[in-house]
């Protein structure tokens, strides 16, 4: 826990975090799901939220994005408080989400899905760069969004938020249910995005995958962050992590 509290100390060492989540509480209707989630992400970092099913990882991303009905606490992005803002304002500030269920619109073609999110900041990828990243998409442009394979849908869901110019990406289990070869491709994509300066919060069940792409890891349990490691520390803490994740 000592690793967690000194958010500001870390900040003073390496500059203020791009995303600082503090005491985040969240509800699904009546049920209180998040109990004070606290973590931070520095610019250019890839950070994962690890944890069992139902620990509150997806809910944390939804609460950051402002699509959770009720939430409180503090989410500071680039120094600006986001907690009271509607999701559209949070998107406009430069945070983009790729949800677990991918959120591809079935009544829109692949191309329409890709071009749907408006540009919120300058400097987003061009459509050509996205095709370079995911060549499969280019061949399927006029297909309806939901006629794609799971992997292609995932690429579309990631691809379309790269156009927006948002530099902070929230990726919710991008590898879930995908074939190993696609998982590798997603992994390479995340590495490439990191190199290009994107800041990424990744929710993962698969910590082997997580350890290959991320700098740091937060363990979420029952709606709280209970531990944190860097990728280098992962080896020493493998037993502890296995116990947390129940694997």
């Amino acid at each position, binding site marked *: 826990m000592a690793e967690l509290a000194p958010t500001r100390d870390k900040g003073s060492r390496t500059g203020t975090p791009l995303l600082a989540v503090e005491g985040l509480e969240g509800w699904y209707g009546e049920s209180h799901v998040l109990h004070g989630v606290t973590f931070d992400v520095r610019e250019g970092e890839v950070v994962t939220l690890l944890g069992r099913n139902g620990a509150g990882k997806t809910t944390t991303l939804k609460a950051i994005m402002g699509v959770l009905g009720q939430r409180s606490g503090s989410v500071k992005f680039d120094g600006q408080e986001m907690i009271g803002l*509607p999701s*559209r*304002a949070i998107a406009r500030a430069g945070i983009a989400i790729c*949800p677990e269920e991918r959120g591809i*619109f079935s*009544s829109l073609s692949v191309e329409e899905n890709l071009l*749907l999110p*408006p540009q919120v900041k300058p400097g987003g990828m061009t459509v050509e760069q996205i095709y370079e990243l995911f060549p499969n998409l280019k061949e399927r442009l006029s297909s309806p969004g939901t006629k794609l394979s799971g992997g292609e849908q995932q690429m579309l869901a990631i691809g379309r938020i790269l156009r*927006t110019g948002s530099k902070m990406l929230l990726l919710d289990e991008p590898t879930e249910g995908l074939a190993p070869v696609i998982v590798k491709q997603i992994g390479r994509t995340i590495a490439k995005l990191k190199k290009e300066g994107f800041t990424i919060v990744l929710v993962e069940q698969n910590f082997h995958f997580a350890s290959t792409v991320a700098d740091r890891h937060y363990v979420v349990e029952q709606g709280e962050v209970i531990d944190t490691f860097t990728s280098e520390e992962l080896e020493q803490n493998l037993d502890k992590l296995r116990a947390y994740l129940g694997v």
Partner: protein
Amino acid sequence: MFESLGISPQVFFGQLMLGFINGSFYAILSLGLSIIFGLLNIINFTHGAQYMLGAFVAWMLLAYLGIGYWWALLLAPIIVGVLGMIVERVLISRLYHLDHLYGLLLTFGLALILQGVLRNAYGVSGLPYSVPPQLTGGQNLGFMYLPNYRMWAAIVALAVCLATWFLIEKTRLGGYLRAANEDPVMLGAFGINVPRMLTLTYGFGVALAAFAGVLAAPIYSVNPNMGADLIIIVFAVVVIGGMGSILGSIFTGLGLGLVEGLTKVVYPEASSVVIFVIMAIVLLIKPAGLFGRTV
């Protein structure tokens, strides 16, 4: 052929033409209802009253301000559309999280208020609104006489329907509408102002109704009940075509207008119920409507 059936071609084509004109009105009105239902999930029972209001605004523009038909065709839909947007912001938007029934009750109540107020002020005998001078007269087609204005009204109504279809199915703005229809939360998370889209969509649907009202003003007299009579048929059209289908609304509206016209020729007694009979049959065979998506 017509003689052997005991029907004169004048009557046959006359009714068919009337059916085509009525059908184009059904199409534009059911289209507006479909768009509003598709995006807002509100069954807009005020639609008929908003159509009537379009005709009344056109009449008022002329009677009080001396503004004629052509400007009214542009101004009345804008005025009624803006009024609709205010109603959406102030009243309808409070009902989105509730059952359909609440929206239906609210809009039904609004329709009664609108009709009541105008009935009180202008009576029910109907106010005359003359055909613009450019469109008076008609064409003698040999087998029938076709009034220019009616032809114009039907063609313009259909052109507006097709333009609307194009807007929704083929443009970027339409892409937002379809996406909002499917998953408004996700669209909001991309930075789109979904509540504002709902307001504008309601305004647009209402403006379509008002536009139809202005087109109808020179054909039917301007009267507070003109929408109430029509809206019941239009709801039947929407049920037959399937809620939320754009092209379905257009085809069904036009087709049913023609069917109604033909029934007047063949068996006039049935003409006022034929649409409801078709509705019952469609509901039995394909409950989601001819073009509707099964939910």
